């Protein structure tokens, strides 16, 4: 398990940003944690990568990402099927609330590529002050536990749905904030007691075990029904 915390403090981030033009060497990192410039808020990349794997669709991914993100801003999502095999998901702070991905607003991209029948891969890269992060290439194949957003590409009938990109609307920000507030209220030990510098006291989310939250599914029994019965022949 990865519990190592790597912090990139504000000053370092600012220096790095200001020298990008002169020094383009990018130190890539697969550390689980990185922090933001503006809020010094950590992002747990393991959770982000898993959120994409489990998401049922863009709206579900928005919810998951905003539950992971521990800062005050809402993270918007853009989903774009670039071609028949490639999907790019962009997380961004929509600061001007225009519903568009502006380059300085980008936080991360997740690029998913179909590599064969029932197979694909995806990789996450950080942007802006998260630019040091680059995930491993995650392989995906039929049989893995994944949400509909990824699983749909395994279907023979798959057709890219987001050739016209989906983007979180400004109107949805309020709903996402409300969902996130409810989520945070369920885990007060994780989201409470922030110091002025954003550091957590009393245990970090990466090391403190919380009981799992469970989603109810279905029962595999029959229903009382008045529908006609057809007895199938062997």
């Amino acid at each position, binding site marked *: *398990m990865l519990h190592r915390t790597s912090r990139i403090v504000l000053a370092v981030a600012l220096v790095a940003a200001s020298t990008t033009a002169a020094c383009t060497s990018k130190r890539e990192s697969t550390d689980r944690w990185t922090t933001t410039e503006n809020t010094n808020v950590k992002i747990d990349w*393991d*959770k982000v990568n*898993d959120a994409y794997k*489990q998401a*049922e669709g863009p709206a579900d991914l928005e919810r998951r990402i905003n539950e992971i993100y521990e800062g005050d801003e809402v993270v918007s999502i853009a989903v774009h099927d670039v071609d028949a095999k490639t999907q790019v998901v962009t997380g961004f702070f929509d600061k001007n609330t225009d519903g568009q991905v502006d380059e300085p607003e980008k936080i991360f991209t997740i690029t998913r590529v179909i590599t064969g029948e029932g197979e694909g891969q995806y990789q996450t890269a950080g942007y802006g002050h998260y630019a040091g992060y680059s995930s491993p290439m995650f392989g995906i194949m*039929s*049989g*893995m*536990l*994944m*949400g*509909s957003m990824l*699983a*749909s590409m*395994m279907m023979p009938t798959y057709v890219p749905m987001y050739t016209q990109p989906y983007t979180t609307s400004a109107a949805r920000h309020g709903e996402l904030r409300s969902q996130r507030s409810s989520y945070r209220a369920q885990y007060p030990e994780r989201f409470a007691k922030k110091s002025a510098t954003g550091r957590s006291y009393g245990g970090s*989310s990466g090391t403190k*075990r*919380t009981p*799992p*939250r*469970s*989603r*109810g*599914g*279905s*029962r*595999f*029994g*029959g*229903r*009382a*029904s008045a*529908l*006609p*019965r*057809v*007895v*199938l*022949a*062997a």
Partner: protein
Amino acid sequence: MTPPRALADLPFARRPPLELLGLTEDRAEIDTDYAGFGWTRVERLWLDDGAALTAVDDALVLALHAADDGAALADDVELEFDLGDARAIAPLSAFLARWLPRLPTDATIVLALCNPHHARLAAPPAAGGRPVWYGRGPVDSWLDHHADHDRLRLVAPGGWHQAHAPEL
């Protein structure tokens, strides 16, 4: 649409795991009206009898439904397939004999299926010696959100069992 007349005609199709097991909506309770059926493949799922968890890897999961008013059979379960404007009935043993040869040969077969009369099932010859897990009593699906992964769990308070070798 004309309802199928034979097991082979059932629209028993592959579906994404979470969709098949009725886990796409975020809710805290079980949907007892769910009627979806089909098959899927998962890397790992957990069988929960209320006291212990058993991990099953590389599983072929068959989501089926026991007939609400099915006969109380000691060694079989009467299945019901909701086809919209009709419901089709068939014994589990006949269904497996017809469909298992058509499905992938994953290491283990898991039946997501209520077993209201606690039938004791024999391993179907079509399983080809692969373990076949089934529950007794009601069987429900759950998705557990852990810190760094999600866990797919099937719960059978009456216990999980492997189908026994057919008696000669």
